[in-house]
């Protein structure tokens, strides 16, 4: 009898423990979950991450500080930051965003891959309407400590202390330094078609492939290309497949279609491009591609 009582009592205690555990979990998970107040950018919602990347890239256009841009991108926790930039650029283009808005992303992706600032710019003079503001009138500078949490002070990312990225990387061996005076390609110089090769690959679609280079044979991203044919038109840019080259772009051709190509940058024009026929040794025929190489004089 006492054994039965003991078991009954133990059961009640155990049951109460379980109920308490359930109540505690319900309260901590649903009624009053942990509230994040010091989140980091890696857990941002994807659309906010996109916005973050745009701001990083646009900021980079001004600062030309590649190390800092890379550090900022790393905050987003992307496995492949360059791929994330390129993918976002392609999504934006596909959704009809103007290229001017996409260009900073493409430029940053290119420079991250190159490892140096490929298109250094001269800082623009500030508009005369913006005088140095009088901060004292708008910002309270009191004796009190700033509104900064201890954690923020202890672990803040010292963005101040990033070293400026050299415009040209400092190679220590084997690579000849580039003359600074000719490091920037002339953006508006016309491109000339310097190579047109038939590409036969039965496993690949009939691609019209482009490669754009400057006079020093450096690949150029952001070149706008318009391809027209009798039933339509397509517009695209180089540099959105950095894994294939910063000056690379491609376009899938159809059979029995003649294409005309206009290079918006520089105003070049190439006509009568079509998918050539390729034949395997066993007699199998298929549509091949063409590789068009453009270079600035």
């Amino acid at each position, binding site marked *: 009898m006492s054994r039965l009582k003991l078991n009954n*009592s133990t059961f*009640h*205690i*155990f049951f*109460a*423990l379980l*109920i*308490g*555990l*359930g*109540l*505690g*979990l*319900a*309260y*901590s*998970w649903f009624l009053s*979950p*942990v509230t*994040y107040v*010091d*989140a*980091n*950018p890696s*857990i*941002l919602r994807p659309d*906010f991450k996109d*916005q*973050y990347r*745009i*701001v*990083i890239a*646009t*900021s980079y*256009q*001004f*600062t030309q500080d590649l190390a800092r841009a890379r550090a*900022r991108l790393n905050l987003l926790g992307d496995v492949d930051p360059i791929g994330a930039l390129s993918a976002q650029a392609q999504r934006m283009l596909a959704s009809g965003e103007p290229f001017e808005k996409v260009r900073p992303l493409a430029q940053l992706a290119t420079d991250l891959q190159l490892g140096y600032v490929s298109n250094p710019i001269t800082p623009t003079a500030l*508009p005369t309407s*913006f*005088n*140095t*503001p009088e*901060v004292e009138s*708008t*910002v*309270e*500078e009191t004796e009190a400590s*700033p*509104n*900064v*949490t201890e*954690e*923020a*002070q202890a*672990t*803040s*990312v010292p*963005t*101040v202390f990033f070293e400026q990225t050299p415009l040209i990387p400092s190679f220590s061996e084997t690579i000849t330094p580039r003359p600074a005076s000719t490091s920037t390609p002339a953006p508006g110089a016309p491109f000339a078609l310097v190579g047109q090769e038939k590409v036969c690959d039965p496993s690949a679609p009939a691609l019209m492939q482009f490669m754009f280079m400057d006079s020093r044979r450096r690949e150029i991203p952001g070149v706008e290309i318009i391809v027209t044919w009798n039933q339509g038109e397509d517009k695209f840019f180089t540099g959105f497949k950095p894994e294939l080259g910063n000056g690379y772009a491609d376009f899938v051709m159809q059979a029995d279609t003649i294409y005309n190509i206009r290079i918006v940058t520089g105003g070049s024009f190439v006509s009568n491009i079509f998918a050539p026929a390729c034949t395997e040794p066993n007699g199998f025929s298929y549509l091949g591609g063409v590789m068009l190489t453009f270079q600035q004089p």
Partner: protein
Amino acid sequence: MSSSNIIKIIIALIIGIVLGLIYGWAIDPIEYVDVTPNILREDYRVDYVLMTAEAYQNDFDSDAAARRLAILGSESPATLTAAALQYATSNNFTETEIQSLQILLTAMQTYQPQGNNP
């Protein structure tokens, strides 16, 4: 049921609740994965404002700058920039960065959303 048993049950219940709270708050708290920028840690928020300021110096587009700042919360762009500027001056940001923030602050103080223009 004796009173001692009732006390034991209550104690067990309290212990269960405490264990549940410890587990739910400390050991395995809810993980947030798609948060909004308004809960970013302050240094990240300031860096975001600084990026916006640097981007502003690239295009001088007040509307774009205000939209970029808007994701940080419901405060006005000028308030957000002023807070970032205060943080920057207190944390030894470079002169260039402080100047960028000052320029953005001036722009945001005079900024009128396009929809409010006559």
